[in-house]
């Protein structure tokens, strides 16, 4: 044994040798948080700059592709002529009502179906049928049943966005820790008390991941229903601008949708982190 090796084994009696400070290998420079954020930002800037450059140098036809500056101009024009505000408000209303209903139906339905086998037996075949089919195929029927109306648009948004919440909550309900349920019952907890004190808190991660998926689906639902059922809101703006070859205005609509999705999912992630502080051991 070399002197160096011997030194490694000699520790003062009763004391653990101190763990080396650099026990974990140092992170590679490109894995550090600041660096990855900078790379992500640079990636967006580079693509936007390249797009702008290609459009201004005539590499691509600006009429068809627009350009970042063209999008800004289009946004200023739409704000100036008073069109964007009402369009955003109309889509936000449809999105809010549709997603709100989808979350309520998905959460309540998910708990009922996941908790009681009899309810599951009634509804699961329908969930399997509807979840596996392209729901846009129902659009003509919705048009016939509800006409061109806000209700029709809401029905479409709900149909498209309810399943991620529903399926996620069903899975969460079935995966609830049965030992915790037994514990609650051993304290004479009623069915309702077990659901409230054990099931609901366990469902939070499932519920949040369902809602996160539902946000994306609801945005799709909003655009689809506005395209086909109302020709209003951001969806209507996109389709009309596309027909008139106003690519800048199309991108304004797309940007608003993308930013809304990003903001909402990141707010949701924050809320979940706040609620689930107990997970940090």
């Amino acid at each position: 044994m070399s002197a160096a090796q011997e030194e490694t084994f000699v520790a003062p009696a009763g004391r653990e040798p101190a763990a080396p400070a650099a026990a974990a290998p140092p992170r590679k420079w490109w894995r550090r948080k600041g660096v990855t954020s900078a790379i992500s930002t640079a990636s967006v800037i580079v693509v936007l700059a390249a797009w702008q450059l290609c459009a201004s140098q005539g590499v691509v036809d600006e009429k068809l592709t627009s350009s970042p500056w063209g999008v800004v101009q289009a946004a200023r024009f739409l704000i100036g002529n008073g069109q964007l505000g009402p369009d955003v408000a109309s889509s936000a209303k449809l999105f809010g009502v549709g997603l709100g209903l989808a979350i309520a139906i998905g959460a309540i339905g998910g708990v009922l179906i996941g908790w009681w086998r009899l309810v599951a037996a009634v509804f699961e075949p329908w969930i399997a049928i509807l979840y596996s089919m392209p729901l846009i195929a129902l659009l003509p029927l919705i048009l016939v049943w509800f006409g061109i109306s806000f209700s029709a648009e809401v029905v479409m948004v709900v149909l498209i966005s309810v399943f991620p919440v529903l399926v996620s909550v069903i899975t969460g309900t079935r995966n609830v820790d049965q030992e915790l349920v037994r514990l609650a019952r051993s304290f004479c907890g009623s069915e309702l008390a077990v659901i409230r004190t054990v099931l609901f808190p366990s469902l939070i991660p499932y519920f949040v991941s369902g809602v996160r998926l539902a946000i994306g689906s609801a945005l799709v639902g909003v655009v689809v229903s506005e395209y086909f059922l109302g020709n209003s809101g951001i969806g209507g703006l996109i389709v009309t601008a596309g027909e008139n070859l106003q690519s800048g205005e199309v991108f304004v609509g797309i940007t608003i949708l993308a930013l809304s999705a990003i903001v909402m999912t990141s707010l949701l992630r924050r809320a979940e982190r706040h609620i689930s502080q107990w997970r940090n051991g």
Partner: protein
Amino acid sequence: MSANVSLTSVGKTFAPGTRPVLDNINLEIHPGETVTVIGPSGSGKSTLLNCIAGMEPYSGAIAIDGEPVRKPRRSVAMVFQAPHLLPWRTTVGNISYGMQLQGSLAKDAQRERVEDLLDLVKLRPARGRYPAQLSGGMQQRVNIARALAVRPSVLLMDEPFGALDAISKEHLQAELQGIVSGQQLTVLFITHDISEAVFLGDRVVVLSSDPGRIAAELRIEQPRPRPLEWKRSAEFQEFYSFLWKELQQA
């Protein structure tokens, strides 16, 4: 007040046509007595506990203070093998959980009870911590405090120290005597550890396996609190050897 637990010809079969897990168990546990039950794996120790807790159907008769047991009762509390703490509740939230479910105490009284128990199980410094931030021994103390919080007259403990290291286990065994002594409790303690059974029990019941039947009983006439050093005495070793032989034959 501690209660009398009486089992008469208790049997349990999980599926028709299969061998019974428990067969003809007759046992009388007197008020304030601590009975420990040992037996090989598969002898139905936990099943017996679940039947007394009213969590499993059974044949025969189980009565607590003369009242038949068919479903969970407020006067009976269980301490499970794993702590089963609610991960989203702090120590205080977990200790008060049973009380909240039973709703038998006003909120102020619940708070007072939790404060007393925090001192009893020595968890005051960890009162605001979540289970993920507690050691195995601390989690088990929360588990015990949660059961005691509802002021049960019967405490059913299912190998509560089984998953702990030897030192934590000995400490908790010693502490448990102090915790239980002031509570006027009848205790049924399941374990597979002979030494634990002797140290904690006023009486040790040996269950045989396949099916679980009472193979032997041993009264331990040793005053409480029993110091841990007693485990090293000749008397303790004698009890240990007797039970070891009984278990070999069980």
